[in-house]
């Protein structure tokens, strides 16, 4: 194919995945470690790391290896950055109370500009949320390139259906920084429907209930002859599995404080270890009736507690209940009753919780109608698989998807601030995109040459209660008597759900100059300056880069294996396990001498596999040492003590 493959990417709060269409079937592309899921965790490498020749950008580690740094150097690691995408300083500040991360403060600059994109301090550097996401996207891009042994430059990226304009734009910016042309942003529940709808013949009305790590979406679609027409969508971009983790963590931290007099909140590494225990308990409670906390404390005490499923369900009931309102609203907006829903599809790791399934059953009256929700596809992978289907549709090259077409909607109404601060709605929510609206404006004073317009997104009556999208000036209006100019402004929401504005003065025929300044967001120049590895895609360099990357990966793991016998965990391995590691490492050393990146990668994978149990043992050791406070020298990293739940961030699932 001349233009290369288009991949589908699920850029998740907790995990990210990249997938493509292999003949007629969407398939997830595994990373170098053989795992399909790349945890959405980015760690800034330690300062002495060799800075590669070139632009001198900081080097980072993404995914599973970054998770290890989370416990050892929490101040250099960020996760769940999706929660910060496209959000203003004000919004981020309230969120950060629940975060282990800090906003970068510039001592020289005085008070921060509320319209600047917030930056997060990571070690000695500061990053915007799209830059962090770009690192994750670049990792996925590299995984795909490694898999195809060919450059990948175009992608479809999924976003929560309820993402607003700024959050969507931030996601697109991240793609550009990572060297990806984002051909389309697809809503996550819609992508899931595409993955399920691949076997044609499926007709009728379906609801997709998507409860992920950090966001909740509900979408109602009508399927007919390959057309997936979204009828309505609703959701909450701050509701997910991490809210459940927080509740469990709050219990543990409060009880540890009360019963053992230890305030773990002062130790970010220890908090991460408790979070790991909370996530494990949550996962266990989906299959068992009982889970246990058993945590060794810095003073040598043990914190032990049983959590019966009943208690867990009572605890999370308020979180789950928050998904009911959006479901009812989506049904009302689609103009249907639960009985008219033919199928329900469950998406997102949190839908594994039995109480969630019960709630969905009640919301859509499934059991009385002899129906069950669809869970056939892995809820962690289904969105990425759907993104791959959409990528295939866009490349227009395949028989299996040529009859398929996705008609999605805008989740939020678009409006203009009118007199008195009220909102005049110009595009209603749930309008099929692309959608447009034309409005006319005039002047209020004789000779006035510009008119200010404030565009907002949301359902509230007052502009102040909606999300401000953009303020702009229609400039260069020819001076006329008040009320005489007639300026036509066209608002267009494109297929990605992003707004475009154009204006024209009709009486003079002059195109009014308008400068659409997003209220929050990066300028084009800023995005340009943040592009990672501009030479990433040069064809000539590509083969060389693959080889260098393969050798780097090999070097990293070989160095770790070299140090292994000095670790106490080594002694815990059986002699068979030790021999296997030595053999695999000798094999890799030989393979590394070759010029064949595929052979090096395969040998790396074998060694990685052989050392898996060793890595787990090391991880456990790191966790317990963090709990004993031995590796913590970061007293300055104290969390806000006023907060009871340590932070509402999504799990970076430990294994």
């Amino acid at each position, binding site marked *: 194919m001349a233009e290369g493959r288009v991949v589908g990417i699920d850029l998740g709060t907790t995990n990210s995945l990249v997938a493509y269409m292999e003949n007629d079937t969407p398939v997830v592309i595994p990373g170098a470690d053989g795992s399909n899921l790349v945890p959405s965790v980015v760690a800034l490498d330690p300062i002495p790391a060799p800075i590669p020749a070139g632009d001198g950008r900081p080097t980072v580690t993404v995914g599973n290896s970054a998770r290890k740094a989370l416990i050892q150097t929490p101040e250099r690691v960020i996760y769940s950055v999706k929660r910060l995408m496209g959000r203003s300083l004000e919004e981020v500040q309230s969120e950060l109370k629940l975060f282990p991360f800090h906003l970068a403060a510039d001592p020289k600059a005085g008070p921060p500009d509320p319209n600047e994109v917030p930056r997060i301090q990571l070690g000695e550097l500061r990053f915007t949320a799209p830059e962090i996401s770009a690192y994750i996207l670049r990792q996925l891009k590299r995984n795909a390139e490694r898999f195809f042994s060919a450059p990948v430059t175009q992608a479809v990226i999924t976003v929560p259906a309820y993402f607003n304009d700024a959050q969507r734009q931030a996601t697109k910016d991240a793609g550009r920084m990572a060297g990806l042309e984002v051909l389309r942003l697809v809503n996550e529940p819609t992508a899931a429907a595409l993955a399920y709808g691949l076997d044609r013949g499926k007709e009728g009305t379906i609801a997709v209930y998507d409860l992920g790590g950090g966001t909740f979406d509900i979408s109602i679609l009508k399927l007919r002859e390959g057309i997936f027409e979204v009828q309505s969508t609703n959701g909450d971009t701050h509701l997910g599995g991490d809210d459940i983790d927080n509740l469990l963590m709050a219990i543990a931290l409060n009880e540890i404080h009360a019963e053992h007099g230890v305030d773990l909140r002062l130790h970010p590494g220890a908090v991460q270890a408790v979070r790991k225990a909370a996530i494990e308990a949550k996962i266990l409670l989906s299959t068992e009736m009982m889970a246990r906390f058993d945590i060794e404390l810095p003073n040598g005490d043990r914190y032990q507690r049983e959590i019966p499923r009943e208690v867990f369900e009572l605890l999370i009931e308020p979180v789950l209940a928050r998904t009911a309102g959006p479901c009812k609203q989506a049904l009302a907006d689609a103009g249907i009753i639960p009985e008219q829903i033919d199928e329900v599809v469950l998406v997102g790791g949190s839908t594994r919780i039995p109480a969630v399934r019960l709630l969905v059953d009640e919301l859509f009256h499934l059991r009385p109608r002899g129906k069950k929700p669809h869970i056939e596809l892995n809820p962690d992978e289904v969105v990425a698989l759907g993104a791959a289907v959409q990528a295939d*549709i*866009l490349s227009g090259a395949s028989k299996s998807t040529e009859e398929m*077409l996705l008609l999605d909607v805008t989740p939020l109404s678009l409006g203009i601030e*009118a007199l008195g601060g009220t909102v005049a709605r110009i595009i209603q929510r749930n309008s099929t995109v*692309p*959608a*447009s609206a*034309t409005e006319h404006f005039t002047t209020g004073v004789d000779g006035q040459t510009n008119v200010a317009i404030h565009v907002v997104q949301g359902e509230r*009556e007052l502009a102040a209660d909606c999300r401000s999208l953009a303020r702009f000036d229609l400039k260069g209006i020819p001076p006329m008597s008040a009320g005489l100019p007639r300026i036509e402004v066209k608002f267009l929401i494109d297929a990605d759900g992003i707004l475009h504005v154009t204006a024209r003065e009709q009486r003079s025929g002059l195109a009014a100059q308008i400068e659409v300044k997003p209220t929050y967001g990066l300028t084009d120049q800023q995005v340009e300056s943040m592009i990672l590895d501009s030479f990433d895609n040069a064809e000539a360099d590509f083969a060389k880069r693959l080889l260098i990357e393969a050798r780097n990966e090999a070097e990293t793991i070989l160095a770790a294996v070299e140090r292994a016998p000095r670790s106490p965990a080594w002694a815990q391995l059986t002699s068979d396990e030790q021999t296997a590691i030595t053999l695999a490492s000798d094999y890799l050393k030989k393979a590394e001498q070759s010029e064949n990146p595929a052979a090096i990668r395969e040998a790396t994978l074998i060694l990685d596999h052989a050392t898996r149990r060793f890595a787990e043992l090391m991880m456990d050791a790191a966790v317990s040492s963090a709990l004993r406070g031995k590796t913590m020298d970061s007293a300055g990293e104290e969390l806000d003590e006023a907060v009871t739940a340590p932070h509402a961030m999504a799990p970076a699932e430990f294994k």
Partner: protein
Amino acid sequence: MLKVLDSAVPIACWSCSIGHNDFTLFCPHCSKIQPPPGCDYFSVFGMEPRLSLDLPALEAEFHRLSRKLHPDRFARALENEKQWSLADTALLNDAYRTLKDPLRRTEYLLKLEGAEIGEEHSGKNRVDPSRVPADLLEEVFELNMQLEEMRAARKMGEEDLELQASLTQAKQKFQGLLEIVDKDLRAEWTAWDDGGQAARPAAQNKMVALLDRRRYLSNLLRDVNETLGD
């Protein structure tokens, strides 16, 4: 407002240079996508302006055109084709959204015919006392008093069952009136569609008045529902 342009003037296709009719979304000669035509929403679907529509046929045509026009079909096309696909699909979606809904369709057609229609912006659609339909003056006055009383009682945390019953009764009455308006509107649709040119101006005037009345009634009902809390 989109306006019907003179279709007798041909424009040249950007791709094959052969002149074609202004209304078309695709060149009849080379089938390439064209810039958005300056046509009304009915013409997008190749229909004469009408108020009674065959909705399943409208949907089928919407799907057929979507398959050809949607930006997903132009992801790897020329830059100008991408832009036109976006603009054409926006036009198609706006047209479908307007025509499939009976009230939006009626308002749209009346505007097309030059009638002045009240604004539908949610920011402006609170009940305007100057537009109370004359025959409802007394009842609306009474209802507004009761709504005030109810809100005051709510604020005090009191439950006035008698007032609630009376409001519920008023609600049913206004709902009934709304249904009558809808029935009258449908009758005027037929008059406009089938009555010929001569019958149209009278039908239009009646529909404008009915739409005003309907807007007033539905705003009133919304206020009652909000106050009753359901």
